[in-house]
């Protein structure tokens, strides 16, 4: 188990030996045997690609005001009457191309989602490691804090933080606004990691290799980082994939409620909020497409995470 987890995590590393081992390993075989996993990974990769290279592949630049044609506003998707192939998924009330806006929006959603997961991962894993390895009072204190955090609905904490953040910095620039949202989502998220890592660490710290390291005088922080951490990363990896989806949805929720990223750099949630206003007038493409994109991204990442959990869990094999 331990042996094949670490390479999976490092699979992207170009070292040929590792790559070959990975291709021969259980994880890869399990992946090839699961159509759901392949489809999910493909969709997620496609979304990621479109989002990352939005500025290269998007047909229009929706943020360059000088290129907007107000006379092209509110056009339906290309296959409907009145639509043109210039705007495949139609345009909004300012004449922005919906498809391009989605690519740029997904980029912001994925960035915020990824960054907040990374932040909560760093906080959660370090606290969990420390808590599990130290035990005793430190452990009790950290775990009680976790309990308190868990007793609040996470969206409430995020709303509170984002709301306070916006009140404190009313004239925040985009970067600061991003920061506030990322922290707001990461704040309730770290608890999951802390608990998972703490559990595994408590098991690991009694194993012989940790005992051996301790006997030869390796300092505790080094034991935690170099010996325990690589062996508890499995569950963290699984958790992260699922948390990315959760974070993306949390960001969309905050943006939909108007406390998310700044309106000048709209994410998928902002689009859904904007499109919502046009719902009665029949301009369904303004809310359906961003909504569908959000579902697609979250669903594919979730399915991939589900498969990863099963693949890495020896009991389910």
């Amino acid at each position, binding site marked *: 188990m331990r042996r094949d987890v670490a390479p999976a995590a490092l699979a992207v590393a170009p070292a040929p030996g590792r790559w070959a081992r990975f291709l021969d390993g259980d994880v890869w075989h399990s992946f090839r045997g699961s159509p759901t996993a392949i489809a999910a990974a493909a969709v997620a990769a496609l979304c990621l690609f479109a989002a990352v290279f939005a500025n290269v592949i998007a047909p229009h630049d929706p943020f360059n*005001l000088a290129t907007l044609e*107000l006379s092209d506003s509110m056009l339906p998707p290309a296959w409907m009457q009145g639509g043109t192939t210039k705007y495949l998924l139609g345009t909004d009330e300012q004449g922005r191309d919906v498809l391009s806006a989605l690519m740029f929006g997904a980029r912001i959603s994925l960035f915020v989602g990824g960054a907040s997961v990374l932040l909560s991962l760093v906080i959660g894993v370090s606290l969990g490691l420390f808590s599990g390895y130290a035990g005793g009072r430190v452990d009790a204190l950290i775990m009680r804090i976790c309990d308190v955090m868990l007793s609040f609905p996470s969206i409430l904490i995020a709303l509170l933080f984002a709301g306070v953040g916006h009140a404190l910095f009313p004239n925040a620039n985009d970067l600061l606004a991003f920061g506030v949202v990322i922290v707001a989502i990461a704040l309730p998220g770290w608890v999951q990691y802390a608990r998972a890592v703490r559990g595994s660490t408590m098991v690991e710290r009694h194993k012989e290799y940790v005992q051996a390291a301790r006997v030869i005088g390796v300092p505790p922080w080094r034991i935690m980082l170099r010996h325990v951490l690589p062996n508890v990363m499995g569950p963290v990896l699984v958790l992260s994939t699922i948390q990315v989806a959760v974070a993306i949805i949390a960001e969309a929720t905050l943006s939909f409620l108007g406390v998310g990223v700044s309106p000048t750099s709209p994410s998928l949630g902002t689009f859904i909020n904007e499109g919502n206003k046009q719902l009665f007038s029949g301009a369904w493409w303004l809310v359906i497409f961003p909504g569908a994109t959000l579902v697609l991204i979250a669903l594919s990442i979730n399915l991939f995470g589900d498969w990863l959990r099963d693949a890495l869990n020896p009991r389910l094999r």
Partner: protein
Amino acid sequence: MKALAPWLLAATLSLAAPLSEAITLRVANQGDVQSMDPHSLNESLQLSFTGNVYESLVERGKDMGLTPALATKWTQTSPTVWRFDLRPNVKFHDGTPFTADDVVFTFKRAAGEGSDMKGYTNPIKEVRKVGDLAVEIETTAPYPILPDTLTTLGMMSKKWCEENKAERPVDRRKGIENTASFKSNGTGPFRLKERQPSVRTVLVKNFNWWGKSEGNIDEVVFTPIGNDATRVAALLSGEVDVMEPVPLQDVERIKAAGLNVLQGPELRTIFLGMDQKRDELQFSSVKGKNPFKDVRVRRAFYQAIDEETIKSRVMRGAASPTGEMVGAAVRGFQPDMNKRPAYDPDTAKKLLAEAGYPNGFEVGMNCPNDRYVNDAAICQAVAANLARIGVKVNLMTETKVTYFPKILRRDTSFYLLGWTPITVDSHDVLSSIMATPTDKGQGQFNLGAYSNAKVDELTLKVQSETDQKKRNEMIREAFRIHQEDVGHIPLHQQALAWATAKSVQLTQLPNNYMYFKWITQKSSPK
């Protein structure tokens, strides 16, 4: 479930029966009334709503003509003195009789610190009590339109204000409030029953009102619903009876559902203002100078805006593009001057280059998103237009609750505002929007401090000129100068759009005021 339905219906009916005697009208607007104080904020929704609770000496009838309200008659005893005879046997909601003392007090209050109505009291020199039920108003100069300017000045009770420490209105700009912001004591056909800011405000019928109500409404529940779709849904589902404004994209949808949509031209002119006072703009990339001080820059902005497309796309045709700061229904409107300079980005770019900004510049723009029809979308379209000539607009759209205090403090470089001349006379626009700001109320809404001594002079002359022909010539001249200076950039007069349930009959005034006393609700099968 099917079997249950008749039972449910019967249960609802039996519950509704005892209540059905009181007729409740549920009204939704895109924003909330900012205060219950009639002198705190000179804004249409605010004055329209408090106009149901507080009354003025003179009112506007359904044809916008002047009708007696708390004054039964008014006469001009000399060029500068007017006598108003007050209506006898009028009582405030708390039972105190309405007398000349209250009128004198009200004028003092409206002219004092914290008031947003100084623009209307500014030409007044003194208000004298000449009997229990008569006052004389003396103006500093002949002021032929005095009664027109008094139509929105709600009369307050001296006793009540003193008892409640509300002798002074509080300044909305500073975001402070006092008793009069939450409670009220007027003479009007409705009393305030409940006030929950941004949640709901309830008015109930005043059974001791002096007048005879034409409508049949016993209770009004006012709810702000900011989201357009939610507001439409509330009307379609029968949760509210009247809502305003109707999002233009939903007009067809509401009509198709068999509900009424009332559309009419509004007196309000939507325009853009530019800070022409500061030596350096607060929100701009240009340092050390103010580009808006250069008329070429202002003209470039004007010519860069494609108002026709804004009308057809953003406003879906429900607007009349204008080159003047007043609409056609306003006295002093000049039909032959109602021309906009041609939309021409190339000329605009040249003008900018001549002014020393060949590559444009960055400027912050403030815009409300819940005050005027499609206000935020208009600003976005303007920003896109200006991007064509190299001007990068950093747009900040926000709710009017934060927007108005900010721009009234003049913390803005470039903003969008709408203005309805309450007097239906051009003088209102001259003195509130075009005249140089003074602390006496002149130019109170000239937020970019456009200033031209000639316009100021003409404004004062227009105020006291009684010869209509000469007066019109002066207005014309002032408008011409303002147009030449591009003091503001007028965009359009928006169309009013209210929607009501089928059971509701009401009167829509072109100044967008909604008087609940004129509303009738036929009992609808519930």
